[in-house]
């Protein structure tokens, strides 16, 4: 399962969701297709779900809201471990990803 455009690519490997490129869609509705893709992983109830953002160079606030919304959904599944991978090379990640941990204490945030 994947969404591939010229600007961004999102694909799933097992219970790892990979994000790549630049995401600046125009709002909640525009992000719905991506949220649906993420939800297919959640529906499989894996023991751990990983969001790999290490290649996502840019995300606008609507996209940050999408990650936050999905994190709140994950919070309803306390049995499921959650890992969020970021990169110190990409400035928005160190600034905005810690908010996900505030929404869900079970999020393991790894920014390398």
């Amino acid at each position, binding site marked *: 399962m994947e969404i591939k455009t010229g600007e961004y690519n999102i694909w799933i490997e097992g219970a790892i969701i990979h994000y790549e490129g*630049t995401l*600046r869609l*125009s*709002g*909640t509705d525009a992000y719905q297709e991506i949220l649906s893709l993420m939800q297919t992983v959640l529906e499989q109830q894996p023991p751990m779900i990983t969001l790999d953002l290490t290649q996502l160079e*840019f995300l*606008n*606030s*609507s996209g*940050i*809201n999408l990650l*936050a*919304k999905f994190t*709140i*959904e994950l919070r309803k599944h306390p049995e499921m471990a959650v890992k969020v991978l970021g990169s110190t*090379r*990409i*400035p*928005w990640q160190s*600034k*905005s990803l810690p*908010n996900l941990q*505030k*929404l869900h204490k079970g999020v393991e945030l790894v920014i390398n």
Partner: protein
Amino acid sequence: MSMSFGETAQTNGTDCFAISVVFKEGKLGRSWKQAGTTSEFLGEIVATQSARSGLVYSEARHAIIYLVNELLENAIKFCSPGDVEVRCSLANSTFELAVINMISPERIPGLQMLIEELTTRDPGDLLLERIEANAADETSSASGLGILTLMNDYGARMGWHFSDAPTGGASVLRTQASLSLT
């Protein structure tokens, strides 16, 4: 009518590094992509200048792109017909941005209520509160989330100025942001 909210006093002088982009009303139209391409362009130019003053290019470039993109996305989403102007300036390590666009008078009370909340509450608390409310309500527009990320995650100081348009009808909204680049 002229009203200001938040931090509207900008300190970068007239002799500092400055660049403006104006989208003239007319056949150009407004498209979502304009926010992305314009923010990349301005981020590149201003960050190159900032690197000459010893600032970290990649950090400055990203912060400027995020800031310009968010305010320009808002302008494209909510503006009434008229020019949209983006003004950037850099003095020492202070980046200042103003986005000027026309706004329908009917939108002003709702926007001013939102601004009142943004400027009186702790942005970190309000950001989480808004995210939770938005997740609980599918119909929520998530308004203000972009500005809250600017204030909380980037430490941007925000200001808003409303004034009458010279031609009457719509009003002029100037949204300002100031950021210390490090």
